């Protein structure tokens, strides 16, 4: 009896939490389908106004902005992943002088928020002539992502049995070959999880894009949403439709990688 009651309680709790998590998303979807003007989220839908998406697409300039987002995000994810794998391999598997100090220095990159560094970063990049270029969006985000990525990949490399690497060394394999042929194939869940996380963070980055670029052609999709927020009035229907457009790629990637994603999240939990 107790077991059953416990089970009901568990479902109830999980149900409540799911509702809390889902409510804003449903709210945005519903609002995105409302007629423009007057409507608020959580209102009863007054029909399926799919034209909101088309309007939002045009007014938010999403054709250009999404292209910029793709360029920036793909560059950041590819570069960060590559560098994180290499750095994580070194920190996780090689013994070298100063590795602990260096690793903690990298961790600093995880702890300092972008808001704290954005102003000096702006001046630095301006001095280098990089503001209003994709580099101003790519380089800082690669820096931030590598801090997390190195931390993440190091944890994976540490979980790989040492004897496997030793067997490869005895087989005459170089560090480079050992990484790509022996160790990394085991880390696919960890790498894909990292890719999904980095993609999401980079895609959603707002502040950096707001500060570093003013050129219309370089703006990323999250900035497009700002158009729908006027000084005095906000068109919630269009804002919601725009939000759905911006969020869709991340959701698609998540669905695509989700099996690996979950496995990767659990990878460090149990050593086995």
């Amino acid at each position, binding site marked *: 009896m107790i077991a059953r009651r416990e089970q009901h309680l568990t479902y109830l709790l999980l149900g409540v939490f799911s509702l809390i998590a889902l409510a804003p998303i449903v709210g945005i979807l519903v609002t995105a389908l409302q007629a423009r003007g007057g409507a608020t989220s959580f209102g009863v839908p007054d029909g399926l106004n799919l034209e909101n998406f088309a309007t939002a697409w045009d007014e938010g300039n999403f054709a250009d902005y999404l292209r910029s987002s793709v360029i920036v995000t793909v560059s950041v994810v590819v570069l960060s992943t590559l560098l994180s794998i290499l750095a994580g391999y070194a920190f996780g598997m090689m013994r070298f002088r100063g590795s602990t100090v260096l690793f903690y220095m990298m961790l600093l990159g995880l702890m300092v928020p972008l808001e704290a560094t954005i102003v000096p970063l702006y001046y630095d990049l301006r001095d280098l002539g990089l503001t209003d270029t994709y580099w101003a969006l790519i380089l800082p985000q690669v820096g931030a992502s590598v801090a997390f990525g190195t931390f993440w990949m190091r944890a994976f490399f540490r979980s790989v049995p040492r*004897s496997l690497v030793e*067997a490869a*060394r005895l087989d005459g394999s170089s560090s480079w070959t050992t990484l790509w042929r022996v160790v990394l194939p085991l880390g696919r869940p960890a790498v894909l999880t990292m890719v999904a996380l980095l993609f999401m963070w980079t895609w959603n980055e707002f502040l950096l894009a707001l500060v570093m670029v003013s050129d219309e052609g370089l703006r990323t999709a999250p900035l497009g949403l700002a158009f729908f927020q006027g000084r005095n009035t906000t068109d919630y229907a269009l804002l919601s439709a725009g939000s759905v457009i911006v969020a869709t790629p991340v959701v698609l990637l998540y669905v695509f990688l989700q099996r690996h994603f979950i496995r990767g999240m659990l990878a460090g939990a149990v050593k086995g």
Partner: protein
Amino acid sequence: MAPVSFAEVDKRFGDVEAVHALTLAIADGEFVVLVGPSGSGKTTALRMLAGLEAVTAGTITIGDQVVNAVSPGERDIAMVFQDYALYPQMTVRDNFAFGLRRRKVGREEIEKRVRRAADSLELGELLDRRPRELSGGQQQRVALGRALVREPQVFLMDEPLSNLDAKLRVQTRGEIKRLQHEIETTTVYVTHDQVEAMTMGDRIAVMNDGRLEQVGTPEELYERPANLFVAGFIGSPSMSLVPAAGVPLELRQAPDGAVLGVRPEHARLWGQGDGLIGPLEGEIAYVEALGRETFLGVDTGPETRFVVSVAGRAPVRPGERVRFGLVPDGLRLFEGDTGRALGPATVRR
């Protein structure tokens, strides 16, 4: 194929001395077993030979080359790991071929060697499987095969049988011995199991606390242990070691504090055998019936327990008192404080 030698090799991890002044010469084609309890330094010695641990002092030689500064990949050795360390994402065939490809062995030669190793280990059907699709015993044979195909100068084996069940272990023990005999490659084998050591090694090196206690053939170690540690470690059940002063026998040349060592087969029930010395009398502490023989633990005093071997089953129970005698040739004397062997003990009758 090549001889291997350790000369005054030390290994320290910080303040801990894992191996101390290890000197050991292994002949070309010889099968040497390093045996000892955990923490004795045997695995560290093997890993230094493999190049997986740096040598703190001394030299290690393979063939005529000092290998202290040679990387593991260039030492031309192959190792079987305790956990097998098979590449999980590769098929058995690729596990075999990986090391050969790294060494730029030709495609046809690789195929030939893989085929030969697979046949000799009965893995032919499994070449396209991945390690996780194999049983523990099959994985173990793949690990052996991966070492075999390399045709190295020296095989290193680090407790390769410890993850197998008892029956498979005995079977694989014979298999490894047979393979080594066929290919005559120098082999260094690490185990904590003295039965494995006794059955497999041409010679056995007993280690304890980072030091080499004795090297010799299984017979030498069994018949003439150099000290109390080896006497107690080799043989199952182990040699009974009792203070000589506590035995009601007149031992010649036994110094103060000497320890008398008697193997179980040299202690028999009184009346079962001619020429026994005794009788000694004691209370049975335990009875270990193995079917073909029975071992009795007999306490003749508070600190003196003899293990007595009885053929077949023995109609006795713990708590009963029995009389037994000792075979005159089987008595060994050891120095009490150093543990050093003093040779055979003789008894004034």
